[in-house]
């Protein structure tokens, strides 16, 4: 792993998950960094939509919050918040939604509400934000999160955003129009839901990471694909662009 950090690898892997021309609903932090990295490398036609109502934003520096002025200044269109959700997210006009998580379980359900009992939480988290409907209505969802036993739990304490419930067919039964989480990208590798069971399966490891480490940092008995790939390390260009983005971040 010489030459780059595991967080850099995670961000680069997340950026690569975005195809050129896709319309992407971006949260602040790592998703925003990855999306902006993609836009500056292989996906110049990526369309960024922030929940603050900025459509087609092309920030020249990484925004620190979803409400930064640079998003409004560079957007093709700035709209009110109800319209973001009603006219743009809800009807399935967004191809990819990027979500983080405090907990993810083996069926890619996501908790960002509370750890422990809801009424008496050990850790109160920020809550849902746009995530439940991003998870429901985007064409697909990319989850980006650092992998650990605290985060990768057998069953989330609170389903803030529905992934695949406890298996196949549940999204359809609930009337969810998007395909849900199709990839979980971590600092160790990449997991994808099994097409049959919807259970997350380790399908790629980042350079220098072994299966044992991935299992150790997973709170359930992790399934591993027969042909686990090794992620290509960040290219020189990817790293250079990423580091420049990070360096220029903020004001």
């Amino acid at each position, binding site marked *: 792993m010489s030459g780059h950090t595991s967080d850099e690898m995670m961000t680069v892997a997340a950026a690569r998950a975005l195809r050129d021309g896709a319309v992407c609903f971006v949260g*602040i*932090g790592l998703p925003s960094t990855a999306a902006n990295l993609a836009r500056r490398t292989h996906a110049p036609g990526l369309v960024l939509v922030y*929940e*603050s*109502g*900025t459509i087609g934003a092309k920030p020249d520096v990484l925004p*620190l*919050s*979803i*409400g*930064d*002025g640079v*998003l*409004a200044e560079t957007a093709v269109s*700035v*709209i*009110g*918040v*109800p319209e*973001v*959700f*009603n006219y743009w*997210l*809800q009807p399935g006009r967004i191809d990819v939604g990027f979500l983080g998580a405090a907990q993810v379980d083996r069926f890619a359900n996501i908790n960002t*509400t509370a750890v422990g009992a*809801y009424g008496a*939480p*050990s*850790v*109160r988290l*920020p*809550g*849902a*934000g*746009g*995530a*439940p*409907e991003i998870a*429901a*209505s985007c064409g697909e969802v990319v989850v980006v999160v650092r992998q650990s036993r605290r985060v990768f739990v057998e069953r989330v304490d*609170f*389903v*803030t*955003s*529905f992934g695949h*419930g406890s298996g196949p067919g*549940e*999204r359809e039964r*609930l*009337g*969810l*129009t998007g395909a849900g989480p199709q990839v979980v990208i971590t600092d160790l590798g990449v997991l994808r839901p099994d097409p049959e069971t919807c259970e997350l399966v380790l399908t790629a490891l980042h350079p220098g990471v072994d299966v044992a480490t991935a299992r150790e940092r997973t709170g359930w008995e992790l399934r591993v694909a027969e042909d686990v790939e090794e992620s290509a390390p960040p290219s020189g260009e990817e790293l250079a662009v990423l580091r420049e983005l990070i360096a220029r971040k*903020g*004001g």
Partner: protein
Amino acid sequence: MAVLTSLADGVEEVVRDGDTTAFEGFTHLIPFEAGNEAIRQGRRDLTLVRMTPDVIYDRMIGAGCARKLVFSWGGNPGVGSLHRFRDAVEHGWPAPLELEEHSHAGMANRYAAAASGLPFAVLRGYAGTDLVGRTDSIRTITCPFTGEVLAAVSALRLDSAVVHAQRADREGNVQYWGITGVQKEAVLAAERSLVTVEEVVDELEPVPGAVVLPHWVVDRVAVVPGGAHPSYAHGYSTRDNAAYSEWDAISRSREEFSRWLGGLR
């Protein structure tokens, strides 16, 4: 009709003890100074409403103004947790805080329903989540045409709304631009409204992307330059990111926070 007033009088006349009230803003144009003034005036028993309660609500919660929070995302944007909010929820300090929790889509639609004079709104939302059942304000509704079952959320009517804007004219027409959020809906959802502005001008020159609230839906306008700090007013100021980080340190302990609160009063 909008009346020009001082910040102190505006807060006193518009935000009353026991109100269901929203100090709205979506990262941009947060009415911080109005929130500080509500703390100074010792407002109590508020049901605080906001999609993205941030540092100003953290202050108000820590100062004991709130009995309940209606929200969808409570964090310090770009920094992390709201420690006073967490302390209230996790340990009941300074008082227990009742929560009514939604998604952004649900909150935006609840405001829009109230602004529209409807008792509820319909959306594709909440399905499969544990948000359902935690509050009585989320139910289901069946489409009378297709039979499809969708989510219904109750209208979020407010006693009062407080927002910050770039400017107003002398009639009290209010203009703001940049990220415009859900402030129009909040003002239209409220019985009473206060707008703090950077300045009052003779003529509201049209600005791309601007929202205008006509004077007859605004009750009070107070000139408070920098009233959104450490948030910002597009074209007037930039976001003071350092102040958001500093709040993390101030708010982390009850002692530090109490010292800050003493300084405010």
